[in-house]
């Protein structure tokens, strides 16, 4: 399993936001903080189908070291296409986007 998944061992300094729910079958939590270098450190917790887990892991790795502006440009559609998520899972991609945006909102 990806090193970018799961809650941080030490949550100090991280912004944390949730999107989705257990009842809809997709819940994504984003943990995000700005490193001393200025780049982002991002982790996701995921309760969802495996392609959603893989997409979240890919995005967390992609975001690491990038700027808030770059992270703000991420959309669910872009993520779904970039990771080849099945069409029926595109709603999950929006869930990842929502969690990211909420965490970014707190960070900024």
């Amino acid at each position, binding site marked *: 399993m990806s090193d970018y998944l799961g*809650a941080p061992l030490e949550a100090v300094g991280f912004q944390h936001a949730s999107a989705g729910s*257990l009842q809809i*079958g997709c819940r994504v939590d984003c943990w995000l903080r700005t490193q001393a270098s200025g780049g982002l450190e991002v982790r996701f917790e995921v*309760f969802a*189908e495996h392609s959603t887990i893989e997409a979240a892991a890919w995005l967390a790795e992609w975001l690491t070291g990038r700027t808030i502006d770059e992270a703000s440009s991420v959309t669910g559609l872009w993520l779904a296409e970039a990771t080849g998520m099945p069409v029926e899972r595109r709603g999950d991609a929006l869930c990842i986007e929502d969690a990211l945006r909420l965490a970014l909102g707190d960070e900024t």
Partner: protein
Amino acid sequence: MTSEPYLDYAATTPLDPRVQAVMNACALSLEGAANPSSAHALGTAAASQVDAAAESIGQLINADPAGLIWTSGATEANNLAILGSALALLSRAPDRRRILVLATDHSAAIEPALAAEKWGFSAVILPVAPSGELLPSVLKDALDEDVALVSLALVNNETGVIQDLKTLAPMVRAVGARLHVDATQAVGRIPVDVSADEIDFLSFSGHKFYGPKGIGGLYACPSLALEPLLHGGGQQAGRRPGTLPVPLIKGMAAAYSFADDQAERDRQNALRARLMEGLSTLGQVVINGQGMLAPHILSLSFPGVHGAALAHALDGLAVSHGSACGSQQGPSHVLRAMGRPNALAHATVRMSIGRFSTNAEVDMAVQRIGDAVATLRGISPIWRELEAGEGIHKVYGMTTPLEVA
């Protein structure tokens, strides 16, 4: 050939080599190849083998062999019992128009009951307790003189819950309704006694107890009317026409003669306990099914884990995620009927063991399932909340009592 353990005996069992030997010898002989309906000597010899198989199975279920009807399997047997009874009662008992089935029964029993509605019957789905048991009080409230038939599975195929026939059957008898028992997961596994439990109809299937696929049976009390569902050909007194497959029938009877005895049940109970013990170390594991349980089935739900992700992680492992027959149809209707919410029902693994299961297979399965659950829980926000002390009931928004290991 896979080296993965096989823990899906409730879906189907491998053919016992002893059964295969019996079938091969039969199929290669002219007596086995002949049509039992033929009047010549070989046909008569084939018919004798069918009669001997009926005699053997009749003894094992303690039923009149004259009541045995060979079918293609339990699905057909259930349909024949339920729809054949409904058709027979259309003119004979116009006041009996309700058919009762358990909410946890196999779709091969529920769907025929619903299908009978086109003839004016009303299918009543009886709720079960969170344990999976049909409570006598629930049956009592539903029973009346207008009930034509009560159908229930003796052993549930997903949870292994055994219904208490000793208590329930006399209640059905008291209102004059017919009793159909779907014994697909019981025959060959636990003792079944048609006479002692006053069962009118009993369904079973050869491939569930190490026999061949494509053959099953329905015991139908010879004194009760039953309309055929198939027409053409007068075999089996017209109750189920079609040329009889002698090697399959003989194979099924042989398989039943090797039925699990108490020692084998004890061994499987020990394997089941080993599975349970190994997986309960994960913590917060929900056990589906309480009360009397069959030795070969264990159903566990893993809170905090997404069902589809778990199924993906266990790809290649021969277990079921709900009913094998209904694996493409959403969350298990059995677990839903037991009060499990969709998300928990999805995150369920049914493990079923059998004659050829070993400690090593069980240990491999515990390792595979344990690793998958621990990994998925490790990245799950739902599990984090459960670990932090939020209860399963709160997180899953449910009130049903659960047995948690």
